[in-house]
C-alpha cells in the first residue's frame, strides 16, 4: 500500500518535471499525453487506496523522511491516507486527470502548451501534499504550494497589459495573480499563528498528537487556535472579506478555473475545517461563526451572480456561494455532509467550468453572455453537459447537488438556526435562477454572436468524451450518499437529524425544491426566448451595486492598496531620506563643520603655533597648581 501512496503522490510531480523539461519549447502534444497518463496513474492509485481503506477500515500511514527539526520541534514528511484524505485524493486526481485531458484540446493553440502542463501537474502535486499530509506543517507546504501554482496559472498569460477596471474588472492576469497570492498570504499568516498556538500548547504538529491533546486544552487557547486556522481557511476558500481574488482569478485559462478555482484548491479551507474537526467541534462559538459567515457568503456571492454578464465570473460566484454552503455545514458540525457536498460540487462545478471553456473556445474567448445566445445549435453536447451541471447546482432532485445541498439546509433547520436556514433556502432559489439565466442566455434565444462575426464550433470529440465521467457523476453521485456516510463517519463524527427534523424532512425538501424550481422558471420566463434588456433595472442603484460587487474591489483599491502605496512612498521620501538618513548625515556634517571651523587655527605660522603652545603650557601649569593645591 505504501507504494501506492507514493505513486499517487509523486506521479503528478513526475508529470510536472517532465513537462518542465520542455517548458521553453514549442507545443509538443506528447507532453500533454504523458502528463495525463501520469495523472491517470495517480487516480488509479488513489482509487485503489480508497478500496483498501474502504475494505479494511484501516488508514495507511507512511513517514518518508524528516523535514525540519529544531529544538523540540520535529516535522517529518509524513502522509496519511484515511477516509477523509482518500476521498479528497480520489476527487482531486479524478478531476485533474479529466482537466489534463481537456487541456490538451483547450490549449492546443497556445504556444506555452508545455509550460501549462508543468504548472498544472505541479498544482496537483501540491494539492496531494495538502490533503495527504499527516501534520499541520505538511498541510501548510501544500497550502502554500497550491497558492504558488495558482499564482503561476492565473498569471499564465502574463504578457497581457493592465487595463482599466471598467474594461476588465480583473485588470490583467498578472494583476489578478498577485492579488490572489497576496490575499492568500494574509490568511496564511493567520494559519501560521494557528500552528504556533498548537505547537506551544501541545508540543507537536502531528494530527494524531494534536487531536489527542485538544480536549485537555484551555477554552481560550482552543478558540484562538480554531479562529486562527479558520482565518487561513478563509483565504484559500475565498470567504468574505478575502473573497475578491476568486473572481479575478478567472483571468487564468479555463481548465485552471475548473480545477483550481472550483473543484480543488478553493475547497482546501473546507478540508482544513473537516480535517481539524476534533478542534472545531470543541469550539462552538468559532464553529457558529464559521457557519454564519458561510451562510452569509453563500447569499452574498449568489446576489452578485444574479446580474453578472461574464460567463466565468457567474460560475466563480456560484463557487463562492457553494463554498459558503460547505462552511455552513462544517460550522454546524455536519462534517461529513460538508465533505460530501465538497466532492459533489467538485464534479458538477468542474463540469460547468469545462463547459464554459468549450463555449469560450468556440466564441474566441468572448465571455459576455449578452453577446451569446442560441449556441445550442452548434454545441449540443456542451449544452447538455452544462445543463446537467446546472441542474445539479440548482439542486434538482436526483442530481448530485440535490442530495448534498438539501442535507446542508436540513442541518441548518435541525440545529435550530432558523435564520441561517432561511437564508440558505433563499440562496438555493437564487442559485437556480442565475445558473439557468446563464444557460439560457448562452444556449437559447437569438444568435446574438453573429453580429460580432464569430463562428462557433463544438469542442473536439475526445474532449467531450473526457468530460463525460464528470457528467455521469454529477447525475448519479448523490445516490452514493448513504455509502459515503457510512465510509467517512468511521473517521468523522456522524451527524444525524433529530427525530423531529427527520419527520418533516419531506416538507423541508419541498420548500427548497419550490425555491429552486421557482428560480428556474423565473429564468426561463425572462431569458429563454432571448435577451430583453431592461434599461430601468440596469440603471437602478441595487443593480449597479451588485454588478460592481458591492464596490468592494474599488474600496480595497482606494482604502488599502492606494494608501499603502502612498504611505510607503512617504516612508521612503519623507521618513527614511528626510529624517533617518538626514540625522545621520547631520551628525557627519556637524563633525565636518567643527573641523572646518577649527581648521582656521592652523595658520601655518610657526610663531602662532608656539603662542598656542605656550598658552597650553600655562593652562596645564595652572591646572596642575590648582589640583596640587586642592590635594595639598
Amino acid at each position, binding site marked *: 500500500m505504501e507504494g501506492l501512496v507514493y505513486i499517487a503522490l509523486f506521479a503528478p510531480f513526475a508529470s510536472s518535471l517532465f513537462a518542465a523539461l520542455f517548458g521553453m519549447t514549442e507545443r509538443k502534444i506528447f507532453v500533454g499525453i504523458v502528463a495525463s497518463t501520469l495523472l491517470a496513474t495517480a487516480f488509479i492509485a488513489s482509487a485503489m487506496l480508497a478500496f483498501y481503506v474502504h475494505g479494511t477500515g484501516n488508514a495507511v500511514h507512511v513517514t518518508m523522511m524528516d523535514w525540519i527539526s529544531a529544538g523540540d520541534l520535529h516535522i517529518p514528511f509524513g502522509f496519511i491516507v484515511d477516509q477523509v484524505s482518500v476521498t479528497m485524493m480520489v476527487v482531486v486526481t479524478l478531476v485533474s486527470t479529466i482537466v489534463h485531458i481537456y487541456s490538451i484540446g483547450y490549449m492546443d493553440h497556445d504556444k506555452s502548451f508545455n509550460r501549462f502542463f508543468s504548472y498544472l501537474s505541479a498544482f496537483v502535486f501540491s494539492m496531494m501534499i495538502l490533503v495527504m499530509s499527516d501534520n499541520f506543517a505538511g498541510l501548510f507546504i501544500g497550502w502554500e504550494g497550491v497558492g504558488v501554482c495558482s499564482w503561476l496559472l492565473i498569471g499564465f498569460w502574463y504578457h497581457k497589459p493592465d487595463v482599466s477596471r471598467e474594461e476588465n474588472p480583473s485588470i490583467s492576469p498578472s494583476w489578478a495573480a498577485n492579488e490572489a497570492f497576496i490575499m492568500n498570504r494574509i490568511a496564511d499568516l493567520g494559519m501560521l499563528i494557528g500552528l504556533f498556538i498548537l505547537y506551544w500548547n501541545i508540543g507537536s504538529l502531528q494530527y494524531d498528537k494534536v487531536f489527542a491533546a485538544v480536549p485537555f486544552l484551555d477554552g481560550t487557547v482552543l478558540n484562538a487556535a480554531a479562529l486562527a486556522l479558520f482565518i487561513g481557511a478563509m483565504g484559500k476558500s475565498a470567504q468574505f472579506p478575502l473573497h475578491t481574488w476568486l473572481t479575478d482569478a478567472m483571468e487564468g485559462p479555463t481548465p485552471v478555473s475548473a480545477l483550481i478555482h472550483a473543484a480543488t484548491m478553493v475547497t482546501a479551507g473546507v478540508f482544513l475545517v473537516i480535517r481539524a474537526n476534533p478542534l472545531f467541534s470543541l469550539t462552538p462559538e468559532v464553529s457558529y461563526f464559521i457557519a454564519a459567515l458561510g451562510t452569509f457568503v453563500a447569499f452574498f456571492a449568489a446576489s452578485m451572480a444574479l446580474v453578472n454578464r461574464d460567463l466565468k465570473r457567474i460560475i466563480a460566484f456560484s463557487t463562492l456561494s457553494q463554498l459558503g454552503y460547505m462552511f455552513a455545514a462544517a460550522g454546524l458540525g455536519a462534517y461529513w455532509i460538508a465533505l460530501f457536498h465538497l466532492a459533489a460540487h467538485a464534479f458538477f462545478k468542474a463540469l460547468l467550468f469545462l463547459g464554459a471553456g468549450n463555449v469560450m473556445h468556440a466564441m474566441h474567448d468572448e465571455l459576455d453572455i449578452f453577446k451569446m445566445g442560441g449556441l445550442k445549435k452548434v454545441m449540443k453536447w456542451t449544452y447538455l453537459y452544462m445543463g446537467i451541471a446546472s441542474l445539479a447546482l440548482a439542486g434538482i432532485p436526483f442530481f448530485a447537488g440535490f442530495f448534498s445541498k438539501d442535507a446542508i439546509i436540513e442541518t441548518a433547520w435541525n440545529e435550530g438556526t432558523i435564520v441561517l436556514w432561511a437564508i440558505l433556502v433563499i440562496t438555493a432559489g437564487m442559485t437556480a435562477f442565475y445558473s439557468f439565466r446563464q444557460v439560457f442566455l448562452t444556449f437559447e434565444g437569438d444568435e446574438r454572436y453573429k453580429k460580432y462575426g464569430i463562428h462557433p464550433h463544438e469542442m473536439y470529440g475526445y474532449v467531450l468524451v473526457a468530460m463525460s465521467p464528470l457528467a455521469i457523476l454529477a447525475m448519479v453521485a448523490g445516490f452514493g450518499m448513504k455509502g459515503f456516510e457510512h465510509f467517512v463517519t468511521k473517521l468523522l463524527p456522524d451527524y444525524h437529524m433529530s427525530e423531529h427534523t427527520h419527520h418533516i424532512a419531506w416538507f423541508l425538501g419541498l420548500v427548497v425544491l419550490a425555491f429552486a424550481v421557482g428560480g428556474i422558471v423565473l429564468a426561463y420566463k425572462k431569458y429563454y426566448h432571448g435577451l430583453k434588456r431592461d434599461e430601468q433595472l440596469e440603471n437602478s442603484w441595487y443593480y449597479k451595486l451588485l454588478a460592481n460587487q458591492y464596490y468592494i474591489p474599488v474600496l480595497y483599491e482606494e482604502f488599502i492598496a492606494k494608501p499603502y502605496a502612498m504611505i510607503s512612498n512617504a516612508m521612503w521620501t519623507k521618513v527614511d531620506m528626510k529624517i533617518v538618513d538626514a540625522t545621520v548625515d547631520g551628525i557627519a556634517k556637524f563633525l565636518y563643520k567643527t573641523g572646518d571651523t577649527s*581648521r*582656521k*587655527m*592652523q*595658520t*601655518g*605660522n*610657526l*610663531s602662532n603655533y*608656539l*603662542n598656542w603652545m*605656550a598658552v597650553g603650557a600655562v593652562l596645564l601649569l595652572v591646572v596642575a597648581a590648582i589640583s596640587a593645591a586642592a590635594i595639598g
Partner: protein
Amino acid sequence: MIGLTDYLIVSAILFSIGLMGVLRRRNLLMLFFATEVMLNAVNVAFAAISHYYNDLTGQMFAFFIIAIAASEVAVGLGILIVLYKKHGSLDLDDLASMRG
C-alpha cells in the same frame, strides 16, 4: 649669601626671556636662539638644585642637555640654511605653507 632661590630666580628670568623670544620673534634664527636660552635656563636650575641636594644626577643631566642642544643646533642650523636657500628668508610669516 646667594642661595638656591636666587639661582632659580635667574633661571626663571632667563626662561621667561627665552619664552618671550619664542613668542615674539618672527625670525627663525632668533627663535632658535630663544630656545637655546630656555634650555640653558633649565640647565642653570638643574645645576643649582643638584648642588643643593648634593646629588650629581642633576649636573649630569645638564651635560646631557648641553650635548643634545649642541646636536640639535647642528641639525637645526643645517635645516635653516636649506630653508634660507630655498625661500631666501627666515621670516616665519613668509613660511606659512601649512595653512589649513
